[in-house]
């Protein structure tokens, strides 16, 4: 395994381009939960004519953007405790019902960041040992939502692969991830196997292979 210093890397997708790639895969009428980080940029890239409902774990279905300075309501926040707004058709529920929606499989997708994803779809995204532990709704989301899509950099700041054989960070869930979007490529899990489906513009299969520890197969279109 080659650990390449990628601090000067210029190939691949920017964080916004990762968000755009995910947004273009969302289907009209989906209700989705967005995690912090790259996923929060997704609403800006949802294509014209596609309606996506955003769910926030504190009990909001139909979350809208920040209401603008002067319009904040302390009784209406997103999951990050930031001021939010509602779109037409929004609904409010209590936290038990919110997690019934999440755990009960009533969302279409949850899109979140990750520290590591294993080749069997294990996810580690909630805790770096030695730091302050906090889990929020992450374990409920991955346990209940049928599409668990991860957005992350392909390698960490030290250049180490984040797509690994086995996660070394504490797990959020076992065999839960269904897609991974990175700056270099898009992977799907199909029948329990990690499959490379798409390369970012200018990225070669060899470039991805050198930066991926997990075993995967290639199924690139064209």
């Amino acid at each position, binding site marked *: 395994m080659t650990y390449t210093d990628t601090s000067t890397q210029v190939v691949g997708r920017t964080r916004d381009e990762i968000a755009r790639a995910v947004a273009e895969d969302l289907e009209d009428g989906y209700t989705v939960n967005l995690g912090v980080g790259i996923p929060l940029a997704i609403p800006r890239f949802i294509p014209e004519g596609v309606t996506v409902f955003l769910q*926030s*774990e*504190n*009990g*909001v279905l139909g979350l809208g953007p920040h209401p603008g300075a002067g319009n*904040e*309501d*302390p*009784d*209406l*926040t997103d999951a990050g*405790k*930031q*001021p*939010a707004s*509602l779109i037409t058709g929004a609904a*409010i*529920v*209590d*936290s*038990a019902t*919110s*997690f019934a929606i*999440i*755990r009960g499989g009533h969302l279409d997708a949850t899109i979140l960041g990750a520290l590591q994803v294993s080749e069997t779809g294990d996810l580690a995204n909630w*805790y770096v040992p030695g730091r*302050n*532990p*906090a*889990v*929020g*709704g*992450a*374990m*409920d989301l991955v*346990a*209940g939502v049928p599409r668990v899509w991860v957005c992350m950099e392909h390698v960490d700041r030290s250049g180490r692969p984040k797509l690994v054989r086995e996660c070394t960070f*504490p*797990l*959020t*869930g*076992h065999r839960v991830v269904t897609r991974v979007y990175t700056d270099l490529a898009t992977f799907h899990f199909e029948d329990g196997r990690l499959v490379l489906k798409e390369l970012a513009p200018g990225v070669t299969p060899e470039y991805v292979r050198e930066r991926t520890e997990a075993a995967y197969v290639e199924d690139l279109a064209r």
Partner: protein
Amino acid sequence: MIDKFRDDLAEALDVVWSGATIAVGGFGSSGRPDALLNALSDLDKRDLHLYVNNVGDDFTGVGRLVREGRVRRITASFPILQEFYDDYFAGRIELELIPQGTLAERMRAGGAGVAAFYTPSSAGTMLSDGTFPLTYDGEGQPASFVPAKETRQFNGRDYVLEYGINADFGLVKAQLGDRSGNLRFHLSARNFNPLAGMCGRVTFAEVEQLVETGDIGPDDIHLPGVFVDHIGMTAAPVPAH
């Protein structure tokens, strides 16, 4: 005629004993019953076990109780406050970290008379396998762990046994309440409040507006007064962002 309104809600709260278990509503500062939490400090209650989603990022409400050393254990999903973690790693406070949906369902179950339930959340993770430190020894090493949770397979999938919460007291905040204790919440400030109200054996509600019984239509009541024992005006200002 039922009248659960108390002119001095803090005085009524004096029935809370040091060492009590208390379920608290709120998500961050949204819907957090700050007047009741501050009254616990003012009444010098100690050794408390709080069931609450967040400690918060400031020194009001739960954060104040923590800073004043009044909390023995927090059962939470996302504490946030750095001073809370400092206390945890120094061995001064216990942390039972559980998934947010598990906390909500444990409150609901306890209030609904359900002793325990199986959830897929946290199966196969350190939040269910007995390796999460409940306490530290002050030297940076774990001193005790949250016990491993019973797991069982249903339809080939692992689920974790979680117990309903029956707290000695419930503390909630609502936008609107009547003298019978019927409550109505506003937008996402609802969050954990109805659940904390359900699972408290004695529940206190602070409200922004009090109306006469009958003024809230039966279809508009989010938490009926059967779950609420004492109601009073919130003294705390609405938190600013």
